[in-house]
């Protein structure tokens, strides 16, 4: 076999005459991104004063929001081309159009999503590529001193109204909406909502319910199930029909319970404390833990002792656990993170214990229950990281976002981290396990699929830029992308901010980077107290024609 050349013409020729090794079509097409890099920067582009959020995963739309967080503006990325006739083209600069935002993007529409005291959650956006639907969220401000309600847990913020909007991206028509009142759904960075295929899971933390909705091709949001209080669809009916004339165990709350003898609308008040029944999901969880401990011993007295020590002693802690975050593992299975209310609200994850449970929605069985320091779960995560991420299957390159399960360089990095941790006596392995598992369940669609973040192609400083779309502190120096393979040279640089560098070197600057998933095109946005500075990074090709 001949040596693969890095020359783009040689690569194109090789693509014509040979097929890639099986399963590597995406890898081979990505190699061309080594030749086409966004090395040319256009600084300080004149653009409208919107906050630009994200390119959709198929690269068709750019999502942005107005400054007052009430309007959604969607652009179509276009490709600027410019030609110059004459002998002395190289010395000509780019035309003035190159510095205008409108040359690169065509506005499709501007729609109003939030009205009154609502505002759009800027960090929230989910895209369903198959139907070109986008899910946006608007919410009102937090209510302080919320009244105690039935079934609600204490200690979490309460938001008066959260609305999820399903928008058809082609023309901006709002297809459907779903509202949650006096509830708390964590909208930051798609935390509380997960999209898998056409299923949407919404974690209502305040009422401890997981709502599963289906997005139909017609644009309707259809309720599939609600897990939490009840697990099966007919649990509620079953319980209500069997508790006619039921006397609550806690006599102190007798006056609160009102049981209507009317069969058509039964209402069983759930007392907030010391209730008659634990919620369905909690019961499943506790019985799973119980049976696991029961089966460990065959001898009866040892068994009871074990149960006392490991189950009954911690019983109240288990009962007090709340569901905090959920994701799909496949169409029927959910990965749920349980923690205490304090643990969920706190930023310091080390201090509080968290648990993970795998739940089958169809059979309503809990399959697994692990603490966040469990080595077994860590090993599963190490081996099958991509299955935890549950990416959408279209477009195909979504499956190839670098992780330690699909990229040898990322795997090496993980191994080095592990080795360093084991050698260093100051840190112990369980801390590394907790730190790694803190990412679970994953935020949906939180990573950019751009090939420039492929760790087989480029090496870059992960603290300054990475596929995870977050604001990062920016430095004076441009961010270098160095090729991972021979000849290991600098391929391109991304410099956010004005060309000459910031005037005031002391002000903290945050940058965020939007990479187009397919085109060699990126936007860097630097935010300070002044209006943001936007740079466009693209490919500059000069063609000569005599």
């Amino acid at each position, binding site marked *: 076999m001949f040596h693969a050349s890095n020359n783009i013409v040689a690569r194109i020729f090789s693509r014509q005459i040979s097929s890639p090794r099986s399963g590597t079509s995406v890898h081979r097409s990505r190699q061309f991104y080594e030749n086409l890099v966004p090395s040319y920067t256009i600084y300080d582009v004149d653009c409208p004063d919107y906050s630009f959020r994200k390119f959709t995963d198929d690269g068709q739309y750019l999502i942005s929001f107005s400054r007052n967080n009430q309007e959604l503006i969607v652009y179509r990325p276009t490709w600027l081309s410019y030609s110059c006739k004459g002998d002395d083209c190289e010395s000509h600069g780019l035309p003035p159009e190159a510095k205008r935002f409108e040359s690169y993007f065509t506005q499709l529409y501007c729609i109003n999503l939030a009205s009154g005291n609502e505002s759009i959650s800027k960090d929230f956006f989910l895209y369903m590529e198959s139907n070109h639907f986008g899910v946006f969220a608007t919410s009102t401000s937090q209510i302080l001193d919320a009244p105690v309600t039935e079934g609600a847990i204490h200690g979490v913020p309460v938001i008066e109204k959260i609305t999820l909007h399903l928008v058809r991206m082609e023309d901006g028509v709002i297809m459907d909406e779903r509202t949650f009142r006096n509830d708390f759904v964590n909208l930051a960075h798609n935390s509380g909502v997960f999209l898998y295929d056409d299923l949407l899971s919404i974690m209502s933390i305040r009422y401890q319910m997981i709502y599963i909705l289906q997005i139909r091709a017609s644009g309707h949001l259809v309720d599939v199930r609600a897990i939490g209080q009840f697990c099966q669809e007919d649990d509620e009916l079953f319980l209500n029909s069997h508790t006619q004339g039921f006397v609550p165990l806690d006599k102190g709350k007798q006056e609160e319970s009102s049981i209507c003898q009317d069969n058509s609308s039964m209402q069983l008040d759930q007392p907030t404390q010391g209730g008659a029944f634990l919620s369905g999901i909690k019961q499943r969880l506790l019985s799973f833990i119980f049976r696991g401990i029961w089966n460990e011993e065959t001898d009866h007295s040892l068994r009871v002792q074990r149960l006392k020590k490991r189950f009954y002693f911690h019983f109240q802690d288990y009962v007090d656990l709340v569901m905090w975050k959920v994701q799909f593992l496949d169409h029927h299975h959910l990965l749920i993170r349980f923690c205490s209310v304090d643990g969920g609200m706190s930023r310091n994850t080390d201090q509080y214990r968290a648990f993970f449970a795998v739940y089958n929605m169809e059979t309503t069985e809990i399959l697994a229950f692990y603490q966040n320091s469990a080595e077994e779960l860590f090993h599963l995560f190490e081996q*099958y990281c991509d299955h935890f991420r549950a990416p959408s299957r279209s477009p195909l390159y979504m499956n190839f976002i670098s992780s330690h399960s699909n990229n040898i360089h990322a795997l090496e990095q993980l191994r080095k981290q592990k080795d360093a941790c084991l050698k260093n006596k100051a840190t112990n392995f369980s801390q590394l396990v907790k730190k790694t598992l803190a990412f679970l369940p994953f935020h949906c669609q939180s990573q950019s699929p751009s090939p420039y973040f492929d760790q087989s192609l480029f090496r870059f400083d992960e603290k300054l830029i990475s596929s995870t779309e977050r604001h990062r502190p920016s430095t004076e120096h441009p961010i270098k992308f160095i090729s991972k393979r021979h000849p290991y040279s600098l391929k391109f640089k991304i410099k956010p901010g004005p060309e000459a560098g910031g005037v005031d070197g002391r002000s903290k600057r945050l940058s965020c980077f939007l990479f187009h998933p397919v085109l060699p095109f990126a936007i860097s946005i630097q935010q300070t107290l002044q209006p943001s500075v936007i740079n466009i990074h693209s490919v500059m090709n000069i063609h000569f024609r005599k």
Partner: protein
Amino acid sequence: MGSLLGNWPSYDPHNFSQLRPSDPAHPSKLTPATYHPTHNRTLPPDNQVISTEATNILLRQFYQRAEEKLRPKRAASENLMPDHGCKQLRGSNADDSKPYE
């Protein structure tokens, strides 16, 4: 004489002298060699269907561990291996797929 490959340049013009251009009047009598098995020990069962496991590998791991955890412990001598496998015998179907050859 004209070789099968026409007048293309070749290292040694006598290399392809044995080859005659194929002539529709005299079809080639060569048939490719075929191999037949002499026994049927390796034949798959008649109603075997090979299909992809529906659950992904991660969930299979969870199920396996759950099964081990929730199965009541037996004495060491009765160490049963779970009978997994991609190949599953299906009951007689009207449209039996051919065994994979």
